[in-house]
C-alpha cells in the first residue's frame, strides 16, 4: 500500500468506512446509503454528492472497482487493496474501542 493511500484513507471518514464495508457485496450508491441508514439506525446518513464523490475517489484510487451498470446506476465492489485498507481500519477502530474502555490493546 503506497503512501498516498495511507495518507488519504488511514484513518478514514465514517462515510468512507461504511461505503467500503458495504461494498464487500456488489452494490450501487443509493443501496449503500439505505444499508448504512439501516445498520446505524439513521445515525449515519450519506447524501448524494458525498456518495458520488466518495465512490469516484475510491474507484480512482483502486479501493473499489466498477462491476456493471444497472438502469444508469453504477454497481461497485471492493478490491484487494480496498480489503486491506478496510482491515487496517477495523484494527485501528478495535484498538480505539478497547483503549476507550480502559483496556490495553495487544497486537
Amino acid at each position, binding site marked *: 500500500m503506497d503512501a498516498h493511500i495511507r495518507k488519504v484513507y488511514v484513518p478514514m*471518514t*465514517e*462515510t*468512507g468506512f461504511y461505503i467500503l464495508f458495504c461494498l464487500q457485496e456488489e452494490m450501487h*450508491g*443509493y443501496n449503500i*446509503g*439505505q444499508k448504512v*441508514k439501516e445498520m446505524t439506525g*439513521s445515525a449515519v*446518513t*450519506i*447524501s*448524494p*454528492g*458525498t*456518495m*458520488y*464523490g*466518495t465512490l*469516484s*475517489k475510491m474507484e480512482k484510487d483502486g479501493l473499489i472497482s466498477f462491476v456493471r*451498470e444497472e*438502469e*444508469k*446506476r*453504477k454497481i461497485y465492489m471492493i478490491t484487494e487493496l480496498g480489503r486491506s485498507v478496510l482491515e487496517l481500519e477495523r484494527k485501528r477502530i478495535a484498538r480505539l474501542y478497547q483503549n476507550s474502555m480502559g483496556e490495553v490493546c495487544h497486537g
Partner: protein
Amino acid sequence: MADKKEFHLFLLPEYEEEEKYLNKMAKKGYRLEKVTLPGIYSFTKTEPEDMIYRIDFNPQKKEDLAGYHQMFADYGWEYLQDMNEYSYFRKPADVRDKDADSDHDICWNEDIYSDNDSRLDMIKRILKTKMLPFMILFLGIVIPQFVGAIFHGSMGPAGRTILIMWTVVLVLYIYIFVRCYVGFKRLKKKYESEM
C-alpha cells in the same frame, strides 16, 4: 417567456449564497426557469414554494453524466441544468427521500453533502478546474499585456486607449481574484472547523 429576470453575480466560492438566493425567490413565488452566463436568472411566477436549491461542482465525462444525475434522482433531487460546470438541483422541502422514516431524515435530506470532508473535496475540484486556469490566464496573458501596454502608452492616443483597456482588465481580475480568495478561505475555515 420568463415572468421575471434578475442579474446577480455569484463568484466561484459563492454557491451557498446563490442557493440561498434561489430558495428565497422560490418562497416569494418565483421558480427558477434557467440561469445563463454571466448570471441572468429567469423565473416563472408560481405560488410561494418551499423549495431547496443546491449547486454541486463535479464535472462529469459524457459517459458518466447519466449515472451522476441518477444518483441525485434516487435521493429525490431534480436536475435542472449546468452552468459554468456547476450543476443545479432542486427538491421540495416537504418531500422526503423515498424511504425516509424519521424526522432525522429530513434534515440531512436537505443537503447534497453529508460531511465536510466531501465539501472540502468539492472546493479542491473548483480550485483545480476553475481557479488554476484563471490564474494561468492572469499570469500568462493579462500581466504581460498590461506591461506591454505601459510601454506603448507613451505612443499617442491609440497606445493610451490600449493601456486604459488593459488597466480595466487588470483591476477587474484582481477584484475577482481577491473576492474568490477571501470566499474560498472562509468556506475552508467553516468546513474545517465543523469537522
